[in-house]
């Protein structure tokens, strides 16, 4: 190594070599041995880096390189190292081991899904679900078809919980706050540390729970720490009912609403098909009575100020001014009171007598005739009708205000006990939400009396800005947060305890006469614990939560426990009480004092807050699939907005996307406006659930927090008709809607609506704009195509959507995303018009006659029409012949298939598709874009598409294959109804039929032969395999 150094001139090395030369007493050396001696090496290394030739770590190497007084030697050393390191990359790639099951778990067949029955519990309801798992990983939520009440109904929100499980922004472990940052820690250790801290004044802030076991665990914690438990529910849907029922009947149950038993349903500011309590159950019950061909048809009248999903499904929709719902309810009571059981009640009479039709007309904006006619209809359906009221956008300043008025109506009509039953109701509702206790807690917090505040899965900082929650909470000395995300409340806490997803944990729930066992479908993915286990651990209990669940189950399960419990696990539920009618509760007229019903017209702008179908209360907002699910009515994604009426937009020359500044006494909110037909002048609406500052990468900063507009009245939050002043700002925002046009729907024969009356007279009613393909030369036969027609030997799949049943709830859309690995594209690409949904729901506004359209220039009460559109699997598919590489073709069972591997992406097929159902992967949406553990949510049966290929609905080909193979193995024919597409499986309205039209006895054959059946764009002679049934509206006798 010294051999090269004599060429150096001024380096350290040269001095050393001179020393060596001197030692050897020769100016010229002859061999290496002459100059290399142990001393020379020692001197060599001494000179360099304190005697250590080689750095101890990579960091040191880098440091040396950076700090080196780069002489020739060090330069060469580093060069040598770099060169040899450059060679390192040629090493073999690290071995990734794929280990097959050497010993397969008993009963487990790789590739075969295993389903578990469990239940999803929210603050509003319990939904029984099946979890589809593959190789131990849950991949999809499905409806529980064997459940007697739900019969497979499941909502979009529940279907999206599969992504909650794999949310990369979940709390994956416990955190301890140090200064302003959170430090990761083992949950076990934090639990132990926190348990010791629970001294002094402890308060627990929790959300309402349907779980008897969680209540026990909570009670145990409260007992151990002498804590007071405060429950609250910012949305308060159930709490409103309980408050109303307590006042009007002295009973604290949430009754069972037997929508399927009602011939006439009146919903006042109530979105029971969209967001209220259990919309999926109500949809199932409601749609089960929408059978015009069987003569079984209920009638739904909706009175509302905002355009909701329920309103858009109404047979008659009456648009009122925001905040006038109480007035309308009392006006109806006034008209109905004579001759009713409550006619003799002077208090009732005195309260309602002032609400004449004239007064109500002035306040609501309706005509007197409309109100009288509605009362007449209710009268005609006594005992068979159902009046529903309440929900986020009718939450008034007094608890249960609208509920009391609605109870009065139901009692007058004799519906109480019939369509509203306390049998199989939701009982034990004391702890739903306690405004008074919440007020006390605030006071305690503000006075600094609280030492430890435990927050159990609640988000008060985000939900209750009107109560000054954030400031109050900070006064607690120690805050312990249990939850799923590092959300706006969690960031204020000192300890974060991660709660497991419901698919990872044991639990139970009781609701509407059923007891559910929540069972895990997978072990905890991360260092999380079920909420029950955390509560128990904090209480210092040694018990396991699963044991508590078993104990709780004992009081619901009859017979031999082990057998019955196993059965309960496999079924997912136990029937506790069967539904039926109940004795009518007696209405207490004193309750009416709480009803808010203005007698004079409201002036100015009034904004109502509402929950959107996709985002709800915002706790699941961090799931991009929820964010990108178009709102059923406005088709908006990725944002909230202020819905304004057409009249206001015209009067102020507002345009879509103009930013408005809404001001209440305390808060200001700037939001883009969206012109929403179906609103009256002055009514505004804003969705809550948006505008969270902390929750995760997806939802943080999306939209604005509308909770800020809520007005607090002694702890009671008012969401309905909040008076605001409105200013237009100079800003504009782009609105990411997936549908911008709705005109021409009727003229093009897409929208087909007929009244029940017309349908009875003429079963072909509604087909007025039908266009037929050009006939053959004889004027009768079909025009002959250029190519030989397809031959179908066995099955031929067809799909039908009954638009009389379909409510547009969008469960099918989410189900399709989940089943088929469809990517979300984000707001920017939605703005570009590149959403990937294979199944979209087209929404049209229409009028039954041209005169009606002209009479309503401000679009106050248009008809709303939903049409789910997926690939129509055309017989003469225009997409098939244009593909230059034959990547899309026709299978012998009638499917228009896509072979992604073959597709080169000319997009000619997408252009030539008259239905525009083909989607193109403009960017790479999956590969490298998934954050761990999102990849587990993918369905292994469906190819993940790469950039540059077209994709579209396949009629769930993988589901067809699965059942076809099963039938083949069993040596039988496929049974009708055996194959269910993902959209069909999750449809709570049962609107979708799928099957083989070659089987003359199949349901689909029967459906397609009904006179209501039509195919869209049939005139193109593409012969789609998807058909629709005319939407029948029951206009009643009125």
């Amino acid at each position, binding site marked *: 190594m010294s051999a090269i150094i004599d060429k150096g001139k001024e380096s350290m090395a040269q001095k050393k070599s001179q020393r060596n030369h001197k030692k050897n007493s020769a100016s010229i050396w002859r061999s290496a041995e002459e100059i290399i001696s142990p001393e020379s090496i020692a001197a060599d290394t001494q000179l360099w880096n304190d005697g250590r030739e080689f750095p101890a770590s990579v960091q040191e190497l880098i440091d040396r390189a950076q700090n080196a007084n780069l002489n020739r030697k060090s330069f060469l050393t580093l060069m040598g190292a770099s060169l040899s390191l450059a060679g390192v990359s040629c090493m073999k790639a690290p071995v990734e081991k794929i280990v097959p099951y050497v010993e397969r778990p008993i009963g487990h067949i790789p590739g075969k899904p295993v389903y578990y029955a469990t239940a999803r519990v929210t603050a509003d309801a319990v939904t029984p679900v099946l979890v589809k798992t593959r190789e131990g990983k849950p991949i999809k939520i499905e409806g529980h078809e064997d459940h007697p009440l739900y019969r497979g109904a499941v909502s979009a929100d529940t279907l999206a919980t599969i992504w909650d499980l794999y949310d990369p922004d979940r709390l994956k472990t416990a955190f301890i706050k140090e200064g302003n940052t959170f430090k990761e820690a083992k949950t076990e250790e934090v639990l132990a540390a926190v348990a010791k801290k629970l001294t002094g004044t402890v308060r627990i802030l929790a959300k309402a729970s349907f779980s008897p076991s969680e209540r026990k665990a909570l009670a145990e914690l409260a007992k151990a720490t002498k804590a007071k438990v405060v429950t609250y529910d910012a949305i308060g849907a159930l709490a409103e009912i309980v408050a109303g029922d307590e006042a009007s009947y002295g009973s604290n149950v949430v009754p069972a609403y037997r929508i399927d038993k009602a011939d006439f349903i009146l919903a006042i500011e109530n979105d029971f098909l969209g967001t209220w309590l259990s919309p999926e159950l109500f949809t199932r019950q409601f749609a089960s009575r929408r059978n015009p061909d069987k003569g079984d048809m209920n009638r739904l009248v909706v009175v509302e100020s905002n355009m909701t999903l329920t309103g858009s499904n109404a047979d008659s929709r009456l648009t009122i001014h925001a905040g006038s719902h109480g007035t309308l309810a009392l006006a109806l009571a006034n008209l109905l009171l004579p001759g009713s059981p409550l006619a003799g009640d002077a208090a009732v009479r005195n309260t309602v007598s002032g609400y004449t039709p004239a007064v109500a007309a002035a306040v609501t904006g309706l005509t007197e005739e409309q109100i009288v006619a509605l009362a007449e209809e209710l009268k005609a359906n006594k005992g068979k009708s159902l009046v529903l009221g309440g929900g986020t956008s009718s939450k008034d300043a007094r608890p249960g205000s609208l509920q009391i008025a609605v109870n009065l109506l139901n009692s007058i009509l004799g519906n109480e006990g019939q369509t509203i039953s306390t049998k199989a109701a939701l009982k034990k509702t004391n702890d739903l939400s306690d405004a008074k206790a919440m007020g006390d807690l605030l006071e305690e917090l503000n006075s600094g009396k609280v030492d430890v505040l435990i927050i159990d899965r609640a988000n008060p900082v985000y939900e209750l800005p009107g109560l000054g929650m954030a400031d109050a909470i900070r006064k607690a000395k120690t805050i312990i947060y249990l939850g799923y995300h590092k959300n706006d409340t969690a960031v204020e806490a000192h300890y974060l305890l991660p709660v497991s997803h419901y698919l990872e944990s044991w639990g139970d729930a009781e609701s509407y006469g059923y007891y559910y066992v929540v069972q895990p479908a997978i072990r905890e993915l991360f260092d999380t614990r079920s909420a029950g286990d955390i509560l128990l651990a904090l209480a210092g209990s040694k018990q396991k939560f699963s044991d508590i669940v078993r104990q709780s189950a004992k009081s619901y399960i009859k017979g031999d426990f082990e057998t019955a419990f196993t059965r309960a696990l496999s079924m997912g539920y136990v029937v506790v009480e069967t539904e039926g009618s109940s004795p009518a509760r007696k209405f207490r007229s004193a309750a009416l004092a709480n009803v808010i019903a203005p007698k004079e017209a409201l002036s100015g702008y009034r904004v109502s807050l509402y929950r959107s179908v996709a985002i709800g209360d915002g706790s699941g907002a961090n799931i991009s699939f929820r964010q990108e699910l178009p709102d059923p009515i406005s088709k908006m994604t990725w944002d909230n907005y202020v819905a304004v009426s057409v009249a206001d937009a015209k009067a102020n020359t507002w345009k879509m996307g103009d930013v408005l500044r809404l001001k209440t006494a305390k808060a200001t909110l700037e939001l883009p406006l969206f012109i929403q037909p179906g609103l009256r002048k002055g009514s505004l609406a804003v969705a809550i659930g948006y505008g969270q500052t902390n929750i995760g990468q997806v939802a943080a900063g999306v939209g604005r927090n509308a909770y800020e507009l809520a007005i607090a009245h002694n702890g009671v939050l008012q969401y309905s008709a909040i008076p605001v002043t409105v200013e237009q700002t100079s800003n504009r925002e782009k609105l990411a809607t997936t549908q911008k046009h709705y005109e021409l729907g009727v003229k093009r024969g897409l929208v087909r609506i007929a009244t029940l009356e017309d349908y009875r007279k003429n079963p072909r009613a509604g087909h007025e704009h039908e266009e037929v393909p050009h006939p053959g030369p004889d004027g009768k036969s079909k025009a002959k195509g250029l190519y030989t027609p397809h031959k179908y030997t066995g099955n031929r799949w067809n799909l039908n959507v009954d638009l009389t049943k379909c409510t547009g709830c969008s469960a099918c859309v989410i189900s399709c995303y989940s089943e088929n690995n469809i990517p979300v594209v984000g707001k920017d690409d939605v703005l570009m018009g590149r959403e990937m949904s294979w199944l979209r729901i087209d929404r049209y506004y229409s009028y039954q006659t041209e005169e009606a359209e002209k009479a309503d220039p401000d679009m106050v009460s248009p008809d709303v029409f939903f049409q789910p559109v997926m690939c129509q699997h055309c017989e003469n598919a225009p997409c098939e012949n244009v593909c230059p590489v034959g990547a899309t073709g026709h299978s012998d069972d009638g499917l228009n298939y896509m072979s992604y591997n073959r597709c080169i992406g*000319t997009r000619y097929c997408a252009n030539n598709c008259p239905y525009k159902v083909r989607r193109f992967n*403009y960017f790479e949406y999956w590969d490298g874009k998934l954050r761990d553990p999102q990849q587990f949510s993918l369905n292994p049966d469906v190819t993940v598409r790469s950039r540059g290929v077209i994709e579209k609905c396949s009629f769930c080909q993988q589901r067809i294959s699965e059942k076809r193979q099963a039938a083949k193995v069993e040596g039988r024919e496929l049974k009708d109804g055996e194959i269910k597409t993902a959209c069909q499986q999750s449809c709570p309205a049962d609107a979708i039929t799928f099957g083989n039209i070659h089987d003359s006895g199949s349901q689909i054959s029967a459906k397609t032969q009904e006179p209501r059946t039509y195919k869209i764009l049939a005139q193109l002679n593409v012969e789609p395999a998807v058909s629709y049934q005319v939407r029948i509206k029951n206009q009643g006798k009125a």
Partner: protein
Amino acid sequence: MSAMENTNSLRIGKPYAEIDNDILKPLETFPTKTWWIAFLVAASALGMFGIVLTYSFFKGLGIFGLNNPVSWGFYIINFVFWVGIGHAGTLISAILYLFRQKWRTSINRAAEAMTIFAVMTAAVFPLIHVGRPWFVYWIFPYPNERGPLWVNFRSPLLWDLFAISTYFIISLVFWYMGLVPDFANMRDRLERFKSKTKIGQLLLDVKKITLRVISLGWVGSAKTWHHYEKMVLILSALATPLVLSVHTIVSFDFATSVIPGWHATIFPPYFVAGAIYSGFAMVLTLMIIMRNVFKMEAYITMKHLENMGLVILVTGMMVSFAYTMEFVMAAYSASHNEQYVFLNRLTGPYAWAFWVMFTCNVVSPHFMWFKKLRTNITVLFIISIVVNIGMWFERFVIVVTSLHRDYLPSSWDMYIPTFYDYAMLIGSFGLFFTMFLLFVRSFPAIAVAEVKADEANEELAQHH
């Protein structure tokens, strides 16, 4: 047109050697400053084309303004536009040859070159506009190992492939055959050049050898000329139907679809007329520039320019007729969807594009009725550019306006081109002009042999 031949002589009236000198001068001298500036501009645009293309390969087609209803945008518009441009060359050299239109000789070479380069520019677009360009070779039907997978002969895109490649090959052969006598001329002239430097001499030798090879041993004997003339006649006959077929087949991309605004039987003749219209406009633009820059006024005379102006007038009116007919057909169709599309063209959000097209294509050619205007270089130049703007917008109207609002109003959306779309449009001009500028520096831009032959014929005619 025959009247013009008799009244106006096309005689140049210069010795043959001088004709040689004039035409071959740009090839034998160092490029001028003007050329360099033009070349740098064109090459920069081409560079931008390359950069954007590379970026789109790595990132995806999402960088462009495409979306669900409008899956084709600038790429296909540019494709049809450039294929259209590529029509005039073969029309001039083949059809006008068959009709014995002598005035074609001065412009046919450059027009053919323009054709070749325009078709090359056009052909790039369908290949790069696919989602997975690395698999684009799958559209070529050749024996392969990809199992039973084969191209779909029902797809008009595949027909395009055949039509364009056939047209390109025939045009290239035609162009090259026309060049052979001139190459021989260049080869012979090169003998007088000597270089003082070694490297210069080497380059000169390379050039000489190349010219010797590509002039195919041309000797210019009477027999050679005899064979040559026959071959040109046959090739012209072969190329003539292609002029009509290419744009007919390109129009099938649209005409065979089910989209209202595309699905029209008038498309093939309408597209061919439009192609000739835009092609001649482009030839006119290029010729005016060329004669000014290379001082070729003697060869490309006002007569030539005027004739081309007349062709523009005629084809412009054909195109206008097609536009009108489309509306008549829609009105008569009793089909709401069809009617809506045309109403939407007139009044919808892209109505401005329609009116740009209308003004440029329908109004502007009528200036050519006036001799004063069609013999005014400035007017001709402006109109030739205006026509091509109009023809680009015609394709924009067809592609975008039809797609953005088709059958289901629920799917209607807007197509807003991004920066990258414009970059590719400008870049395509860069590609075209880079090739064209290299052409004028390395090939005789006017068919020397043909010009001289015509000159000889004219002389003979005058002597008699």
